[in-house]
């Protein structure tokens, strides 16, 4: 058997006192899609950085076609044929697709002027090579995240074409976009490109990977074939069997907290790409976790933000009642007065004050309560912080460090804990576990279920179907801002997907 396309043996990497990699072996064959799984801190990013030349290993060896190589910077890795697509796509939104593809290597006319037509022609050719019909003259800002992802792939492959490393490429994609991306990856693999695919999403692995390497604590915890049962993957990931990622379901639901009957949100001004609720009927009862499913643009996020008054300006029509009383819900204040709390899908952008301490973030929604007569009470603040740390296992257990320094999972716990402190009766969650590792996910699910058991009503929108199916008591499917189907938790995924796409199951 010939040498693998890319191999790593005995890789060790230390950062100060922290040993990020403790002797890792990894290999990639030509034409293979190799999934690399691991929780935050398991070492997969470090391994990726070694392969892409961002860091050099302290010990161990990287070989390409069996020949040892060393990269002292990303350029050398690219020259050796390794292209990396990081999570934050390095595209310039205000430039068009062609300009992005040729950024730094622009085609010139004699005399130093840009040869725009030639760049557009060439860009078109490359995009069509993977059967993507994007006009190269379009601004990247106008593309969907999925399309941007593909532009980033084409750009990366134009630098280097043997190995493609993709860091969580599906994190921000919709179900349909993920399928298109997988098609493209398969086509590339068929031409002999080796792909390292890093992901949090276990459920995608069987669909796309030829082989799976699971990392834990800076080591390879196991190499397995992609159709290994999820329980096996989870066991490798977290180091012990995880009986149930999802907690049980509600034993009984109480009285109705939120009731929408033929409710529509009339926008003050129409806005393209913002699908307002139009004719929605649904209920959330005490003790219940209700899921909102739907394809991208079905209006899940829009429903939650319209209920909380954070979306576009407008007003509700039809029946909107909280606790049996009709409410208007036209502002954040009105929603909060009605006992509604909201956790955004964008914790870094609109959930947290990243540079401020964990403790200060936690009390943000209860400042009024901890400042009697307008004066901050250190005692009440400490009590509130203690309460949050008691409810959520936020690590490190130190309220004084900047919340931006925490892992994604712990940041998400802070956002949740912050809203729980306000004692809401109805909690609106948008993508509650985006970018959160499996361990923290399980913890968040368990916590949500415990809160529901105490009488909280929870309405959760998610693009992760297994999450909705595993967590929720009921799932309401939205399409074009309207509820089109409803299922009990535990329903099979294809049924929900069919309803979301408007097909018969």
């Amino acid at each position, binding site marked *: 058997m010939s040498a693998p396309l890319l191999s790593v043996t005995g890789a060790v990497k230390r950062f100060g006192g922290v040993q990020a990699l403790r002797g890792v072996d990894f290999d990639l064959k030509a034409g293979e899609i190799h999934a690399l799984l691991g929780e935050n801190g398991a070492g997969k990013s470090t391994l990726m950085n070694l392969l892409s030349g961002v860091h050099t290993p302290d010990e161990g060896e990287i070989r390409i076609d069996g020949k040892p190589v060393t990269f002292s910077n990303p350029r050398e890795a690219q020259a050796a044929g390794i292209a990396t697509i990081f999570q934050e796509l390095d595209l310039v939104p205000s430039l068009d697709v062609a300009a992005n593809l040729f950024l730094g290597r622009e085609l010139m006319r004699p005399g130093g002027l840009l040869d725009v037509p030639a760049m557009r022609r060439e860009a078109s050719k490359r995009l069509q090579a993977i059967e993507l019909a994007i006009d190269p003259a379009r601004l990247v800002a106008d593309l969907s995240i999925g399309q941007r992802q593909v532009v980033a792939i084409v750009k990366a492959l134009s630098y280097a074409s043997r190995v493609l490393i993709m860091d969580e490429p599906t994190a921000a994609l919709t179900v349909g976009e993920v399928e298109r991306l997988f098609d493209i990856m398969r086509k590339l693999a068929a031409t002999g490109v080796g792909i390292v695919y890093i992901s949090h999403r276990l459920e995608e692995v069987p669909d796309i990977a030829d082989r799976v390497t699971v990392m834990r604590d800076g080591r390879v915890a196991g190499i397995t074939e992609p159709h290994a049962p999820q329980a096996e993957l989870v066991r490798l990931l977290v180091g012990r069997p995880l009986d149930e990622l999802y*907690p049980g379901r509600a034993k009984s639901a109480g009285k109705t907290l939120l009731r929408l009957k033929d409710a529509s949100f009339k926008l003050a001004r129409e806005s393209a790409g913002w699908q307002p609720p139009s004719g929605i009927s649904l209920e959330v009862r005490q003790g219940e976790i209700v899921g909102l499913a739907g394809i991208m643009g079905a209006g899940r996020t829009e429903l939650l933000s319209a209920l909380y008054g954070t979306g576009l300006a407008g007003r509700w029509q039809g029946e909107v009642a909280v606790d049996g009383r009709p409410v208007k819900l036209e502002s954040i*204040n009105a929603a909060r007065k009605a006992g509604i709390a909201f956790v955004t899908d964008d914790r870094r952008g609109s959930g*947290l*004050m990243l540079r401020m301490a964990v403790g200060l973030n936690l009390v943000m929604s209860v400042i009024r309560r901890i400042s009697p007569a307008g004066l901050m009470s250190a005692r009440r603040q400490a009590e509130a912080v203690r309460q949050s740390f008691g409810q959520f296992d936020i690590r*490190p257990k130190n309220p004084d460090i900047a919340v931006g320094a925490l892992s994604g999972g712990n940041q998400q716990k802070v956002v949740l804990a912050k809203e729980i402190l306000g004692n809401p009766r109805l909690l609106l969650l948008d993508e509650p576990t985006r970018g959160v590792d499996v361990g923290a996910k399980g913890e968040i699910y368990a916590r949500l279920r415990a809160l529901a058991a105490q009488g909280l009503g929870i309405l959760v929108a998610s693009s992760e179907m297994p999450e909705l199916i595993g967590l929720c008591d009921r799932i309401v499917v939205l399409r074009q801002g309207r509820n089109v189907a409803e299922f009990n938790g535990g329903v099979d995924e294809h049924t929900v997907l069919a309803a979301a796409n408007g097909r018969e199951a």
Partner: protein
Amino acid sequence: MSDQKIERTANPAMPSPTAAPAAAQKHRVDPLAIIVRFQSLIGLVLVAIGGVIFSPRRHGEILFLNPDNIANIVRAVSETGIIAIGMTFVIITAGIDLSVGAVLGLSAVVTATMMISGGFGLIPTILAVLAMGVVFGIVQGTISTRFRLEPFIVTLAGLQAARGLALIVSGNQYINISYGDGPGLAPPVFAVLGERLFGNTVPVATIVFIIFAAIATLVLNTTRFGRYVYAVGGNERAARISGVPVSMVKISVYAITGFASALAGIVHAGQFNFGSANDGMGYELTAIAAVVIGGTSLFGGAGSMVGTVAGTIMLGALANILQLNNITPATQLLATAAIIVLAAVLQSLVRRREGLGR
């Protein structure tokens, strides 16, 4: 607590192995972060030591430490200091107020005009001028929040407007303040702003500065409003979602800078016994420099009042040493420039160390 019990039963031994190694790492205190936290105090101490070393001496006496010299330093910085205190609120919300120097000029002119030409008494004049400053700030804040304009642009316009108003009120003349009883004269007690108390040691202007600083420190650190100010600068969208009245907070901080500028304008008129439309020219930049050297981030969400006070005095002390040594104002400007850059670089290094981006 019962909450925790429920969590344990609902959540049997949920592992969270990821955070453990991070915990050990994050508890270490970064010495650089400590330096930045107290950078202006450290800077002040360094400047003071430098002042002692490089001070000219007369008959063995270190001139820098002469009580009169120190009184001069703290008097000279009191007007920009008052403004810098107001500016700290604005900058913590990630805003900026360029109108402060112009509002100082307008206030000085109005103070002089009301007492001399208007025949108003001392108290009505002071109250009216302070109210004018507050209203000026409220208008700027309201325009900025209502029309979602950058405070930079709105207060740049405010600067022009205040200078224009000051020119109109003063007729482009110095309004001299004469003291005495009767119409056209200011009450003699107003002149106290240019004097010193406690056995001719502590300048009254400095006392105003210190009292204002103390009140501002309490407001920023111990009140709900103060917390809101940090929240708005920390992440405006997150603050809004958490129920913070963001627009009210923003309008209020510009009202505070308006008040501070008016107060500084009154002090200015009292110290110099006149009002002129050109008073306070460039003070906005000195005040911003003091705030930034004091460790307050222009990105918002972080900063302290103590830092601003130390930064203000440090700039004054530095200017004083250079003057004592007959060093030109040009060199003074270059030294200030170097200190601003140093303060900013230190802050940027800490941000990068904390992994919080640029």
